[in-house]
């Protein structure tokens, strides 16, 4: 027993040390940085509430928050709808089933940097493939990434495309749990396929929908490399994401205190949004 106690401590010691240095310390120091001015060169100075006051009145920060919400309002519903549609299409005996699934999942394994570079070209106004296809059906070229109205929706569409395969897998796993006897019973009752979807499939997929909602929301708040590569946050700052603004404050302006304040605020916003979503849908689940 004593030996087991000792081995337990010995084997978990490296992880405990790692936690102290790379988790506990950064979390505590993030809080401390909120009350500091620090440019990494001079000695850090006490800032009082400066960073918080600045955050509250910083229109660039709130612009970034608003942009992120615009992104989420387009991306999240689209992500749920497309993932559900593809999963339903795959949930049957199919020729080449593994191939279809693998094709949908391919963008998930590709680096976000590559996807952003690739789609910058697909979205290009004059030479892009998308406008090329639109021209064939007589639609005038759309300045996807340079028009403030279309830039963020275009990025949201691309991110949905990149991640959909991941959420298809979640829905496919959920579809395995729809009881076969219920499916048969509802068919004997003479339900149309829409009724079957609306009253059997969709309700029994609620846990998966909550999961997709939560994960795509959290993922959406982390938006960084796409605007960094494709638009630099423009046009008119309409694609400036919170993480991009945090990065700019740290890397370009050397404002460590303020950048950390943005990080803490973002963590709180993510927590609050996910909690509200869970409460709303948890109620639906209980009903």
């Amino acid at each position, binding site marked *: 027993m004593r030996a087991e106690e000792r*081995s337990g401590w010995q*084997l978990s010691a490296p*992880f405990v040390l790692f936690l102290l240095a*790379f*988790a506990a310390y950064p979390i505590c120091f993030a809080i401390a940085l909120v009350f500091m001015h620090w440019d990494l060169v001079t000695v850090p100075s006490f800032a009082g509430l400066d960073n918080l006051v600045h955050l509250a009145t910083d229109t660039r920060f709130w612009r970034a928050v608003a942009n992120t919400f615009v992104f989420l309002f387009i991306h999240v519903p689209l992500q749920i709808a497309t993932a559900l549609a593809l999963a339903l299409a795959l949930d049957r005996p199919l020729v080449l089933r593994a191939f279809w699934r693998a094709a949908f999942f391919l963008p998930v394994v590709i680096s976000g940097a590559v996807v952003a570079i690739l789609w910058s070209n697909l979205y290009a106004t004059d030479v892009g493939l998308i406008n090329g296809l639109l021209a064939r059906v007589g639609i005038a070229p759309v300045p996807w990434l340079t028009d403030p109205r279309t830039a963020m929706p275009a990025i949201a569409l691309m991110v949905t495309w990149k991640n959909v395969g991941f959420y298809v897998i979640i829905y496919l796993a959920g579809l395995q749990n729809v009881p076969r006897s219920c499916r048969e019973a509802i068919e004997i009752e003479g339900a149309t396929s829409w009724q079957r979807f609306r009253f059997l499939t969709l309700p029994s997929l609620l846990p998966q929908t909550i999961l997709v909602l939560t994960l795509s929301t959290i993922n959406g708040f982390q938006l*960084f490399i796409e605007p960094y590569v494709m638009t630099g946050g423009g046009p008119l700052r309409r694609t400036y994401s919170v993480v991009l603004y945090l990065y700019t404050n740290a890397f370009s302006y050397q404002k460590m205190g303020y950048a950390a304040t943005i*990080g803490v605020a973002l*963590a709180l916003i993510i927590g609050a949004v996910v909690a509200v979503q869970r409460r709303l849908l948890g109620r639906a689940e209980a009903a």
Partner: protein
Amino acid sequence: MKSLAKLAVYIGLALAALTFLYPFLWMASSSLKPPVEVGTISLIPLDATFDNYRTMWSRAPFGRALFNSVLVATTITFAVLVLGSITAYALARLRFRGRPALEAVTLGLLLVPGQLTLIPLYTLMVKLGWIDSYAALIVPYLFNATAILMLRQFFLQIPQSLVDSARMDGMGELRILFTIFWPLARPALSIVAIFTFMGSWNEVLWPLLVVRDAHLMTLPQLLTVFALGGGAGSLGVSLASAMVLVVPVVVAYMFLQRSFIESMAGAGVKG
């Protein structure tokens, strides 16, 4: 009617698959096209050439970046497997004071968004003098809470009788872990290996913060800097440089797609 519906499903699937595959095929073929052809929608280069690859290779240290990426991702994956197994073994199979607390903290870590610790971790790297070093790219990733919890879950299922008889034979805990648990845990280890490697291979925000020297950049970082800095100069060249990052992943994915899907979807759900 039934077969008509079936046809509709296949047409829908084919269109969807085309949407996911075509951009990558276009990227691959455009990287082989001379500048006059790049803008075209066709997948077959009329006048295929490796010029874009030659240009890309000579303008930025892509060979070195490939080496850096392989080194960093392999080291991290190896560490997460070995160190994560050791931690997971202690959490799953050894009773000691503090274990429940350690489990709770590990679980709690999954809820901490990376943005919260990004800046303090970056300032820590500055203080340690690790900016522009492999240490900054590797050390903060040596352990991974998701990996530890997955391995712990797997180790819990291994029968206690195996552990007891091994201890009776005088085997130490680490020997039990690596000679008895590891061979049994191969599915779990490969799942952890794939999502760890892919996570590291594709990571770009952290390298952008801690590395400025082009010779220490990882592939996605160099690619981003190269494309944004105008170093590529032409579309074909920037697509050729993206191919260096994509080809190894796609080749591995073609052979191991089932494991990839299981691993990356599983890690996301648990993480």
